[in-house]
């Protein structure tokens, strides 16, 4: 059975918000009976983009995480709904019936992803419907995928077995797997949002001037074991990524040719730019 999946590549999202604006364009002042009633002009974020800054000047990065209804196979909102107000289609898309769901505010709270929004005026819960109404009308993909200029959002229709191969090939992850809801939205390069880095810059004094040290060997060790290594670039910079936040003490060992070895200790809460390391 061919089903819909969404792939969100966190490394490619720039917070342009065109997917958000396309969602507003589609749903504000438009009723799609059986699919969704009109979205309020302000206040709802059926597609929401969450920012994460890591590090600090001069070494930082920023990730943006688009979050929307995950169209879960084990949807807690379906459990919380009464009178069959929420149904799951054969193609995997989850629909909140705009008529049956009236008054059911508990559906909003049931979603651990915060992807369901309460429409005060119509008294119904609402979420992103994967543009099911358009797909049923022959459109090839939801509008969010079409407008995304960087490929941060892609929609794929295939059976789950085929998609399992894609998950492995592209290194896809669930957002909050601990919720156990079996989302149909999968995230690539999620570490940009959930993990942290340790970075620094190696420099040395030579002939009265301080210069960047290129090609120095840098090793990252934790509890005595080397977990990663790299070489500094032309600016003397190095960066170790995909580390767990709040994971305690690390040691950076720097071996630059022609210089004595140097070690630096770093404690990880959030990402750390360890600054200049003089060898």
């Amino acid at each position: 059975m061919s089903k819909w999946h969404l792939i969100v590549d966190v490394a490619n999202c720039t917070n342009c918000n065109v997917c958000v604006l396309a969602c507003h364009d589609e749903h504000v002042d438009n009723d799609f009976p059986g699919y969704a009633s009109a979205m309020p002009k302000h206040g709802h974020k059926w597609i929401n983009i969450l920012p994460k800054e890591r590090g600090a000047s001069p070494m930082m990065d920023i990730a943006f995480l688009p979050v929307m209804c995950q169209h879960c196979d084990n949807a807690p909102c379906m459990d919380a709904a009464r009178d069959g107000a929420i149904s799951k289609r054969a193609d995997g898309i989850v629909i909140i019936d705009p008529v049956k769901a009236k008054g059911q505010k508990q559906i909003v709270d049931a979603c651990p992803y915060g992807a369901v929004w309460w429409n005060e005026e119509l008294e119904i819960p609402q979420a992103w419907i994967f543009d099911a109404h358009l797909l049923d009308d022959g459109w090839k993909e939801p509008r969010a995928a079409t407008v995304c200029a960087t490929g941060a959002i892609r929609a794929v229709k295939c059976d789950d077995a085929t998609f399992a191969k894609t998950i492995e090939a592209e290194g896809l992850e669930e957002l909050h797997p601990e919720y156990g809801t079996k989302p149909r939205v999968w995230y690539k390069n999620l570490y940009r949002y959930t993990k942290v880095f340790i970075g620094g810059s190696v420099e040395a004094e030579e002939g009265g001037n301080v210069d960047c040290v290129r090609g120095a060997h840098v090793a990252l060790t934790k509890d005595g074991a080397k977990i990663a290594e790299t070489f500094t670039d032309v600016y003397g910079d190095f960066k170790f990524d995909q580390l767990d936040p709040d994971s305690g003490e690390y040691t950076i060992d720097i071996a630059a040719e022609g210089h004595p070895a140097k070690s630096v200790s770093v404690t990880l809460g959030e990402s750390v730019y360890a600054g200049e390391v003089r060898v």
Partner: protein
Amino acid sequence: MGKYIRGDATMKFALILFGMRLLFWWTALRHPVFRARLKEKNLTAQFRTKDGKVGRWFKIKDGTVSSGAGLAATPDVTITFKTAEIAARLLMPPINQLEQINALKDFHLSMDGEDELTSWFTQTVLLTQTVGWQYGVDQGKGVTRYTQMTNGGPVFIYEKDGKIIRITPITFDATDAPSWSIKARGKTFTPPRKTSIAPHGQNWKSMVYSPDRLLYPMKRVDFDPNGERNPQNRGKSGYERISWDEALDIVSSEIKRQKTVHGPGAIALSHGSHHTWGNIGYYLSAAFRFINTVGMTRVLHNPDSWEGWYWGAVHHWGQSLRVGQCETYGGVEDCMQESEMVVFWSANPEATSGSYGALEGSVRRQWLDELGIEVVHIDPYFNESAQLLGGKWIAPKPTTDTAMALAIAYVWITEGLYDKDFVETKTLGFDVWRAYVMGEEDGQPKTPEWQVGETGVPAKTVRALARNWGTKKTYLGAGGWGNGHGGACRNQSGLQWARIMVCLIAMQGIGRPGVNMGNLQWGTPVDANFYFPGYAEGGMSGDLHHTAMSVELFQRMPQLPSLNTVDQAIPRLFLPEAIINGKAEGFAWDGKSIEAQFTKISYPKPGYSRVHMLYKYGGSMMGTMPDSNRHVEMYQSPELEFVVNQSIWHEGEAKFADVILPACTNFERTDISEWAALGGYAHHGQTQLNHRVVIFQHKVIEPMGESKSDYNIFTEITKRLGLSAYYTEGMSELDWVKREFDASDLPKIVKWKDFIRKGYLVVPPNPEELRDNVSWRWFYEGRKKDVPEPMPLPSDYSEEYLKGLQTQSGKIEFECQSLIRYAPDDPERPPIVKYKTHEEGPGNPEWTARFPLQMLTPHPRFSFHTQGDGKDSFLNSIEEHRVEIDGYRYWVIRLNAEDAAERGIKQHDLVKVHNDRGAVLCAAKITGRLPRGVIHGFESCATYVPMGEPGKSVDKGGMLNQLTPRKSQLKQGHSMSASCAQVEVSPWDGVVEIEREPVLAAAE
């Protein structure tokens, strides 16, 4: 017998007239739209020869048409042809436009009658040709799909029952032209087969249906054109609804009164730098013809996007017809195939999208990573391009970039890391500049260690960058376009920065494979030879002086030339000073030569009246021009007897007018255009795109309320001046659109009827072997220029045509001979580029002590200038644009965590951003994207919301341009310096009043 023998021409003319009678009958029978049209007026129209021997009258009464041969007793409209022969020739299809124009000019053809009726009648005759045309593609269930163009990309619009359902970008189908591919380093790259769309493009539905739309004409309640005008209340008084008749009568009477009471020059029209899209409706088209028809003082623009390039870079390498920015052909392919690094210097194309480029460049810049091309971002702010692309981020203090660039040159010189051969043979004056860089002139060698004190960038980083750059084939992407534009070129040292960008790329041998200007924004391999006019070519303006029409469009689309007999101009940056104090000075923005910018413009011009009427057209300047509280004082000046505002939404300067004329959006009128086709000074802007797309801009819905298209508003005014035939040439917007289609290369590849139905046409790219040559390669190799740009002008070559550059030596000049000729001792613009600190920065310790934060105000990411902001549109919900605090959406100001903590400011606090020029209430965002001492807020706010007295109180709307400096970058120029300003940020204290220096000069 003689009188019954008709000459051949006489018979032809009579038959044509009879045919017209049948045409009216047949069209009315078939088309309800035409029947409705006929009910609009009752009149008798007469066609005749001058001698009256051939004629036919048409009587339109209560929607029916009767007709007879001969002459009517009292026709309302008379169209006279000198002879039957002339009439037959002109009226026999296919109608030759050039013949019609020539006949009018030579008085072979004349039209008499009241403008209201002649205008209506001629457009009705033309309507018989167009009324049956079919538009749009049926989608079933009552939905029709149309096409339009926004400033953020081309769009489909799905309409049902007169309502816009949705607006989407365009996905191509199997019949559309193929896409280009680029082969680089063993891989093939092809862009996606669809158009992209910018945030403000996707925002349009909420702008069309905005609650702030101007739906009917209005008049300020305390303005009486025949009594008290109360100019001092502008910006304070309310408005009342009036009819179009009353509004147009006031405007046209005022025009006549200004001219008879004060004389030529008394009326000025101020327009923006952009417009809602469409070649016929563009300000360079409909508004320019209107200016010329009435005769007005022009508000002369400064080269806002180009500043440092026009006033500075042009002296090093020419390129004046690109306002000092250089050619960019073939840049994308060359960079992808050959380069090892791209340096983005004050360049943020991910946010600014070049100009009108939607998000086309993003996918190309993503290819950089795949190709292993290194990336560097030089910007005080960790910008959107740095965020997406990664790479090395270097953050010099604002306005100090030149110091860093000098240090790079120093390293290249001392370590021999530059193209010595190129510098030796293709440039002039390097030794003079070299002496300055090495410190031989002022005793200060411009070392990486020296620049630390200016920029804050570690010496080691500058040295590493210089060495890396000097040993790798590098594209320098300076400014948003990559060959310039925006950013640092608009701050107080923009001149220096743009100049030194040229010097750096010249040292590396521009034109060598992999070495050029660009950041993958310009230079795609689209077919640049296919002709479709850009908006700068002037549409239907007839203006050969202030548009690029004379180059090509005038021959292809013949039209009545229009000439503004008022030769007076006010430099835009000093419009308030000109109005309030009666004088202002500036310099010309004229790209025809390097020297054209040396021409001084003085207001008032001897013999002309000062300005007492302002026709404010389009978006507000208060959000986009520096030190904009001055505009409030200007509006309240008694010197301005009358202000009319023609715009779409009730915001900004519309609230300062006496009469407001409601214009409609492009979605409510017909037009034609090409995506990113600027033309003129930005020739071949289409090379920003992955595909060239020409659009028939369908009128999707009727104008909202009583709003009208700009063209129709101008037509109504010119009717009351007896000039509507001159203004419109008898044609509707649709008629002009058809003419522009016929004038382009479109008829070679698509039929009109197919084009207007489907609405878009993808222009096929060149086959690979016919792609444009790479820019500058010809220069690097010492050959004749071989890229498709018709510039510089022939007389600007010193030696042989097409060999060398526009400069006196024909080479890139490190020591500019044009500046030696003009002003060799100007400390603001010496013949070689030097580093000098400025008043809006470290050069003015007293000012910076009081206002220690450097505020960057780049172009907004989500709106297109003011277009899209405010007006309760969707994008105001984007937190990066505005943040909601207690029910109001405040403009965002970004600051570093330490600067915020020092001031007791937390995330999303209400803060006052202020200096002696004004104060703006904003929502604070704390971010690591800025170093200490630098803050960031977009400019181009659409809403001015003074909390007390306009001009004298804190603004809640978000207009940060109230705080920016008005001073020109140089006295010998007319240049913005506003993109960086010294301010302070304080927690909001509730004090609404501010004090500022009035513009009004003390009486002598």
